[in-house]
């Protein structure tokens, strides 16, 4: 058996690259859902962010401006969801689905109108796209046995957004469990009435959470179109927002678990690519579609109660109305 197919540096490296947009979207969803606003529109916000990011990067010639617009547009969509579910007390699932449709359709229509390339944005070149960061000593340490290549290939040589994504894991943990905002955020997702009677605005708290969701989805979208790929193509999120949602449930709404869930789901996809067309011992060739379906299958198994219990925030999905 060729272990390189399973644990080779290239498999692990692509695991990281595939995990990053999942991780950013997953942490995005974590803020919103912990505050009691379910967000099925992660996918739509990522896609809108990806399109806005690529379009702006191409127009202004800067990846950073692209990132800025990705965030701006994603936060805009997040506020629409916030208005629908917090202020208007609407159905959060319906609002999220609507955002997914608007983003998918809107990106193609605007892309075609602006760039006339069949809904694509022009290919990003040079500064229009993020370049990889080479960490200090990556080359000089590359010769050290075992750890050298790991440092050079796995740790170094990623886009800056990759480091940002992984940095957001401890930051999110710290915000959630070590700050006043985090305490209140967790409380409002469990029992908004308790927060209200403690003299804290449920509305403002939830809006802040939803905006953080927008910001992180913007990062995720920009990563797809301005870093990992050189431009936007139709439906480029390809269900990543939903896998991120699955990872969030799998992680039981906890940040460090979320990182591991996203790495696991990323690994499964990387493995699927690595094993494509190669027969496995005993079972033979595994269709790539099976590997792609594994994250969902694992989540269903979790929800069925085989791997502990995933208890969502109690007030999730329910608009807060004062009694009467």
């Amino acid at each position, binding site marked *: 058996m060729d272990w390189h197919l399973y644990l080779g540096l290239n498999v692990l490296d692509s695991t990281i690259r595939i995990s990053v947009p999942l991780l950013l979207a997953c942490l995005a969803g974590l803020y919103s859902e912990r505050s009691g606003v379910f967000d099925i529109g992660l996918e739509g916000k990522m896609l809108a962010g990806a399109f806005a990011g690529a379009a702006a990067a191409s127009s202004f010639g800067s990846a950073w401006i692209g990132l800025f617009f990705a965030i701006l547009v994603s936060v805009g969509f997040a506020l629409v969801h916030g208005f629908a579910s917090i202020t208007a007390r609407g159905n959060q699932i319906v609002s999220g689905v609507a955002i997914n449709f608007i983003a998918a359709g809107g990106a193609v229509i605007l892309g075609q109108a602006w760039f006339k390339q069949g809904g694509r944005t022009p290919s990003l070149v040079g500064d229009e796209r993020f370049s990889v960061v080479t960490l200090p000593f990556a080359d000089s340490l590359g010769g050290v046995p075992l750890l050298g290549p790991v440092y050079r290939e796995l740790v170094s040589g990623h886009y800056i957004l990759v480091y940002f994504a992984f940095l957001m894991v401890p930051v999110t943990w710290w915000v959630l469990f070590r700050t006043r905002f985090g305490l209140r955020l967790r409380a409002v997702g469990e*029992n908004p009435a308790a927060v209200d009677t403690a003299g804290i605005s449920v509305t403002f708290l939830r809006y802040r959470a939803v905006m953080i969701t927008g910001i992180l989805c913007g990062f995720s979208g920009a990563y797809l179109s301005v870093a990992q790929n050189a431009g936007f193509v139709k439906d480029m999120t390809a269900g990543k927002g939903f896998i991120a949602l699955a990872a969030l449930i799998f992680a039981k709404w906890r940040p460090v678990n979320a990182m591991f869930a996203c790495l696991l789901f990323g690994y499964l996809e990387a493995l699927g690519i690595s094993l494509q067309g190669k027969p496995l011992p005993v079972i033979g060739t595994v269709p790539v579609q099976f590997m792609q379906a594994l994250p969902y299958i694992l989540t269903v198994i979790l929800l069925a109660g085989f791997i502990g219990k995933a208890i969502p925030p109690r007030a999730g999905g329910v608009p807060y109305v004062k009694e009467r």
Partner: protein
Amino acid sequence: MPAPAIELTGINKSFGPVQANRDINLTVEQGTIHGIIGENGAGKSTLMSILYGFYQADSGSISVGGKPVTIHTPNDAIAIGIGMVHQHFMLVQNFTVLENVMLGAEGGQLLTGSIADARAELHKLEEAYALEVDTEAVIEELPVGLQQRVEILKALYRGAEILILDEPTGVLTPAEADHLFRVLAQLKEQGKTIVLITHKLREIMAITDNVSVMRQGTMVATRKTSETSVEELAELMVGRHVLLRVEKGPAHPGDVKLAVENLTVRDRRGVTMVNNVSFEVRAGEIVGIAGVAGNGQSELIEAIAGMRQAVSGRVLLDGLPIHVTGSADPAELRRRGLAHVPEDRHYTGLVLPFEEAENSILGYHGQAKYLKGPFLDIDAIRKDAAAKIEAYDIRPPNCRLKSANFSGGNQQKIVLAREMEQDPTVLVVAQPTRGVDVGAIEFIHKRIIEMRDAGKAVLLVSVELDEIRSLSDRILVMFAGQVAGERGPDATEGELGLLMAGITDGQEAAE
């Protein structure tokens, strides 16, 4: 004399067309326990929510400690020293005691330092007021009595000098309630002012210094507790003379209509809850089953009503067996004349989002009179519901209103009307007046006696000893799943209390 702790003047508050508070004046003296009593929906909770800044009054003014104040949000109330313990606890279930107490009063952006400070402060409070709770315990693992203690600590932690408690004993066992009263008495000794909202007269008499009575959104009277009586308060609450003890003639028992023979029932965990119980109920008599909650009464009733499978034994309804150890079907039992008023009207008695009319035929909806071909005959159902509303004085008299929007007493009347109006042979009633106002209790008791006098066999289960004693013709006391003894209607409370504690005739004789 110090300025009154709270002075409300001319408070008005409407919710749409409903005026919940009408020109309310209230003065609460410093360092006293002031009771506010009234039926459900009389406007007590609304008034206190205004004081706590949860709602704004449409007009009127509030003074605290002699100074006029405006309270727009709970924050304002907290700042001037008002704390509130809500009827439904405002606690985050998966937070620790400490986190719950801190929430909203963290004292800084970061928790790192403030957690330690809060813990020390909380320990100090727990000691000062003898309110011990493990600060690191998670709320959902605490019994309700302790959860309530956390609510009190929350208020004290925020520096509350005035403590409002909204129906605090509704969720407590009698022992827990007694403990709460001791805590309140102690808080009063330390100079706190306490406002106690309740609809239970016994609590008012037991603990308050003064009492104000509300009725239909208005304040009808304020009395010194020592100068009033249960009878006077009940009358003020309801607006007419109330019989606290029902009048009834002697029973004329006929044939056996319900016979229970050696019935044994286990609960989900496999624990034997009803152990070899036998009794019978005759036409024209009320058999009451007394006992402390959890001694098998619920399981007994559920088995008879076909809601729970028994392990062994027989139940005969009008001489014919009910398949209690197998597939007894509540719908079939209803057709055979067994009406059942379940103990939990929200869980098993009603479908709360349904209209009143729908609930008033639930379980009987297959009867020809409610059907037009394969469809429900809505007109007939509404007409039928309107008649029941009239006969049972269900308020508001609107059969299209959602059942959730009726008060507890009226919801109970919906269930009673449904079951009693089907002319059953046997009526099984569990906890008929739990959470029901004084006025409605009187009505419900009268109806149960009327059923008896109409020749129905009535099996009554209640944890309210007074209710059992005033209604029953024979009293069975259950203890640990068995019938500990049977007494006549003239049994004393002490005598029944001994049986309820499991001290049976045999033991008494041996002593």
